[in-house]
């Protein structure tokens, strides 16, 4: 089955407070509540359908252990269809479902805007000498990591073990273009140093090939089986192995290449011989060699570099696209992804320094090396680690990435629009529009349902099991012509239309 690669990104931001001893959960709560001033964003996210311990390999740990969700934390749904909340002592933004990678980039950047506005509003409420800062990175350099997760809709009929084996090859090697760069090395046991430079923020933290965990013993392939939609048809591949990118190009290529390879896997067209023998050691080995020359052992005994593996993946995806009619993403976007991917890998092979305007680790490394040269700094100097951290500062006055000359793919106008308007082509449209129009009637919302409180009636839950319904095309008129939620529900039920045929 050809599944449209509905995708999105969830980001846990780093948070710090200066001038006061405020714990990160409280500080994160201040951000979410400061942003939630508008009535529409006080709508709670409905956690009753969350199943973070359901395992794609067929086990359900929900009954065996306490969910790690903090029910006291703030959870809101936004009018752009996103979720904004406090998770694991970090503010987290989960973008709405998108059907285009460029669109997903815009909604990821909208999250940064929402965090910036939250910080402004929260700091305004705090004493003058107290302020909160937020960072879009994945590590504090001391053995503590927090995630930037991607989500992709995949075909339930594709055997999960096959999908996991295949996609691991990409997850281990894609860091050559989507690594965000890091000064130093660290372990989950808290050992760390400030020496050297590596491609990835996250590689140090991966200890297993596959598994359900996300906060300890992190696996390269996460098996969380929580589709948030029709579980007979779909899976949601929950990807925890990536870095948060500041470069728009890197986010674009990370999502685009992963979506196309997943589509190739669904068609059973993944190359037979492209499996890495020891993924956990390989992901660290590749990350710690910015010369990109290190070779890793493959199952068939060959030793290949990450670039050679990426070249094989590009060749295979090209063949797949030529052979099958791939509808995973818009056709013009597929062409752009493959062109950009191939040009990037070619340039990484011959003159990687040219990519300083589109690859985070190269942009960061270039500035760190030049800064060290100017000030005669030696390897391990704190100022070099400070550049690494401040590269990711969301405050534009302090951000170093802002000054790195990174290419823009999405206009500022499109990003602003994505803060307050949902995408058109998924159920996020219905969620966002209904929330904006009837904020006082929506009791709660989740990815796949909304609950309404109507006078003299029990609570009404509307199911939205199909990510590609509830779109603008299917529901705009319905929403526009209804004055109340009662009218909306009546229209849904009238003309012998079930909610299903009306697109939910």
């Amino acid at each position: 089955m050809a599944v449209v690669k509905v995708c999105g990104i969830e980001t846990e931001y780093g948070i710090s407070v200066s001038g006061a001893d405020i714990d990160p959960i409280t500080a994160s709560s201040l951000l979410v509540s400061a942003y939630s001033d508008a009535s529409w964003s006080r709508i709670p996210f409905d956690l009753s359908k969350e199943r973070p311990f359901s395992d794609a390999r067929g086990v359900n740990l929900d009954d065996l252990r306490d969910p790690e969700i903090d029910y006291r934390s703030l959870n809101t749904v936004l009018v752009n269809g996103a979720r904004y909340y406090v998770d694991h002592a970090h503010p987290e933004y989960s973008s709405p479902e998108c059907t285009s990678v460029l669109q997903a980039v815009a909604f990821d950047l909208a999250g940064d805007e929402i965090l910036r506005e939250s910080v402004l509003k929260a700091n305004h409420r705090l004493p003058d000498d107290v302020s909160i800062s937020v960072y879009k990175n994945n590590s504090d350099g001391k053995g503590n990591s927090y995630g930037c997760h991607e989500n992709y809709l995949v075909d339930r009929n594709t055997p999960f073990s096959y999908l996991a084996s295949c996609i691991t090859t990409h997850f281990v090697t894609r860091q050559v273009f989507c690594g965000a760069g890091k000064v130093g090395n660290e372990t989950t046991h808290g050992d760390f140093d400030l020496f050297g430079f590596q491609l990835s923020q996250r590689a140090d933290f991966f200890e297993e090939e596959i598994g359900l965990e996300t906060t300890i013993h992190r696996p390269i392939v996460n098996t969380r089986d929580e589709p948030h939609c029709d579980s007979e048809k779909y899976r949601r591949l929950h990807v925890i192995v990536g870095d948060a990118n500041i470069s728009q190009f890197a986010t674009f290529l990370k999502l685009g290449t992963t979506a196309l390879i997943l589509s190739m896997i669904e068609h059973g067209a993944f190359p037979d011989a492209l499996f890495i023998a020891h993924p956990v050691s390989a992901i660290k080995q590749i990350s710690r060699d910015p010369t990109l020359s290190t070779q890793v052992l493959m199952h068939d005994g060959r030793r290949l570099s990450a670039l050679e593996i990426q070249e094989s993946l590009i060749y295979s995806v090209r063949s797949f696209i030529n052979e099958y009619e791939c509808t995973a993403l818009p056709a013009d976007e597929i062409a752009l992804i493959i062109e950009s991917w191939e040009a990037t890998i070619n340039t990484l092979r011959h003159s990687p320094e040219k990519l300083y305007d589109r690859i985070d680790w190269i942009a960061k490394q270039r500035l760190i090396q030049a800064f060290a040269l100017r000030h005669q700094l030696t390897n391990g100097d704190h100022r070099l680690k400070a550049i690494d951290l401040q590269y990711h500062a969301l405050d534009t006055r302090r951000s170093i990435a802002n000054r790195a000359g990174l290419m823009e793919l999405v206009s500022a106008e499109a990003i602003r629009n994505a803060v307050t308007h949902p995408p058109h082509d998924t159920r996020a449209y219905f969620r966002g529009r209904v929330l904006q129009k009837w904020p006082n009637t929506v009791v709660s919302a989740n990815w796949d349902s909304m609950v309404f409180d109507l006078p003299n009636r029990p609570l009404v839950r509307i199911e939205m099991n199909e990510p590609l319904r509830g779109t603008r095309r299917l529901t705009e008129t319905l929403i526009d012509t209804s004055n109340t939620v009662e009218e909306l529900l009546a229209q849904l039920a009238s003309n012998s239309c079930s909610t299903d045929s009306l697109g939910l």
Partner: protein
Amino acid sequence: MSGQLRKSTQPKVHEHTEEIESEPVVQSELSADLESVLDAIDNVLEENAEEFVRSYVQKGGQ
């Protein structure tokens, strides 16, 4: 949505077999550009870098 995206600034890629073309600037201009970026970093980088790095401690997340 896609209509709102700025098509003109999409990645500057040429034929798929080619490399990404860098901006046609001479070496001295490139250096001048980098020098001004370094000036900017000098201005915005935390004054007490050691304290900043030391105090940036996060709770582990996902």
